[in-house]
């Protein structure tokens, strides 16, 4: 048994949240306006993948699914130190919700013979967090979500993770292969080295796979997605006074009008 690991890291190109604008007519997002960047939580996933490779040995392969120009996020990952990249791109993928998306990524991980798959906690544009457990379920693999720290045990074929659970943590040992969702902000992503960055942007070419290449052409896209957007409307606004005040004193007076405890009315149970 080889003790070197094949580590697949899933990354996604998303609109830069700081630059997104809203169409005032429809209330929907003008995605075209915003620069496309790597989903921020994925930077933690890339870092975790590289750190794992540094410790265990093996290779890191970045995978993304998206339009042809999504190869930019693979360049980012390779610039940071990933060894290779796979771009899943095909019109057949258009409109996929998390069910087919996780299927395509799961098949890709299988095709690459992954020991460990690492994803970011969730994407900033749809924030479901459903793709990592979905991938694990499609392949019948173990899953570790909300991971704060990883402890590889290659000699046992296991990956131990410290998971953030409500009110504390747990440490879980999972058999390989395993899908990890790394918690946002839990590590410090490295900075790309200049030479590696130049290589990624000039020489590196990702492998490009279609839906048929991974045998999912009939199982992806809008038509087979279980969920559909049934409509968009504006959030019901709550009626508010919307009164502007100039000084903290005025603010205090205004608040005291509404809030009993600010009027010095000390009740029996206070």
């Amino acid at each position, binding site marked *: 048994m080889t003790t070197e690991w094949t580590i697949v890291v899933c990354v996604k190109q998303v609109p830069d949240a700081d630059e997104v604008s809203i169409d005032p007519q429809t209330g929907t997002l003008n995605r075209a306006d915003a620069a496309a960047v790597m989903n921020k939580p994925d930077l933690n996933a890339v870092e975790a993948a590289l750190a794992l490779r540094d410790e265990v040995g093996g290779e890191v392969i970045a995978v993304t699914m998206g339009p042809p120009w999504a190869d930019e996020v693979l360049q980012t990952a390779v610039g940071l130190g990933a060894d290779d990249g796979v771009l899943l791109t095909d019109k057949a993928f258009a409109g996929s919700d998390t069910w087919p998306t996780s299927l395509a990524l799961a098949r890709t991980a299988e095709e690459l013979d992954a020991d460990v798959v690492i994803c970011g906690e969730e994407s900033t544009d749809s924030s479901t967090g459903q793709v990592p457990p979905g991938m694990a379920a499609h392949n019948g693999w173990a899953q570790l979500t909300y991971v704060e720290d990883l402890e590889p045990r290659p000699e046992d074929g296991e990956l131990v993770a410290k998971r953030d659970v409500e009110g*504390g943590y747990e440490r879980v040992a999972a058999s390989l292969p395993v899908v990890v969702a790394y918690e946002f902000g839990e590590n410090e992503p490295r900075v790309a080295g200049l030479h590696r960055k130049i290589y990624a942007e000039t020489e590196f070419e990702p492998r490009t796979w279609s839906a048929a290449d991974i045998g999912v052409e009939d199982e992806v896209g809008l038509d087979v997605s279980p969920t559909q957007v049934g409509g968009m409307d504006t959030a019901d606004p709550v009626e508010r006074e919307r009164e502007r005040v100039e000084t903290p004193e005025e603010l*205090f007076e205004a608040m005291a009008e509404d809030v009993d405890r600010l009027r010095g009315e000390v009740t029996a149970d206070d």
Partner: protein
Amino acid sequence: MTDVDPDDYSDVWVFVEVHGDEVASVSWELLSEGRRLADEKGEDLVALVIGEDVTEIAEEAVAYGADRALVADDPVFEPYRADPYGEQFRHLVEEYKPDVALIGGTHTGRDFAGRVAVPTHAGLTADCTELDVDDDGLLLARRPTFGGDAMATIKCETHRPQMATVRPGVFDADEPDYDREGEIEETEVVVEEADTLSRVLERSVGDVADITDADVVVAGGAGVEGDFGPIEDLADALDAEVAASRAAVDEGWIEAARQVGQTGKTVRPDLYVAAGISGAVQHLEGMNDSETVVAINSDPNAPIFEHADYGIVGDLFEVCPALAEMIREETRPEVTA
């Protein structure tokens, strides 16, 4: 992978999240909302209770509104792990064919939901802030859209079950009625320890900050720039809970349990003070039910002012301490004991 006939599916399920002998409070909140949806659909509300020695919890689920409880009781289910829970859930869905399944949006609930939606080919919508059913009994799951002030309604017409996760505090739990009667059914356990893919080596869980029941909440956002001191000081003066927007939590300035918003907690205090929070719709969804809202922000164009009763354009590092001092002055008891 064919579409299913929705007519074969009925009932509203709620996943009761059990940790040892504790139940995540969001489970009771979802039983109350599930009760409403089941009544509208004219169907049963079913509590799904998976764990070890959980009969009493199943009885409590009936008190919280369930018509029936389906129980899978086995040591393999304690503590929670995704793969045995997933296998058991798949079996139960095939056996009982639920139309709707609601799951709390905790870390455990989201880990579970993402796992089980795949083998059942369910439609799963994350972090809903409103649920309803249409005239045909179809679930309408509403959630805010990315970056906008719009709400999207997600539907699942051709697959079952229709699943949704909901964060804690979005719905209120009704008082339990221990005279309610309901059927408790033990189901076949289809998972064996030898087949599991993971082992829990250690679990350390303490008290979680609970901001959902606070009467007064003081929340800080990106504008605090790493220093929650003024927020904590004002909260102390108001005897309030400290909360935060997602931006502040993502920066690591404050614990995630104190996050207000679509992907955090929903609060309904008498007074909500938002300092240095711009007011994205995701945040508003978590505090819109507050009685009185006060906004402190240095940006006069911050959307939060449109959603506040009283707003002041100013530096929170000056406004908060000034306000805290006035409050302490005013509320100081006149008679000392």
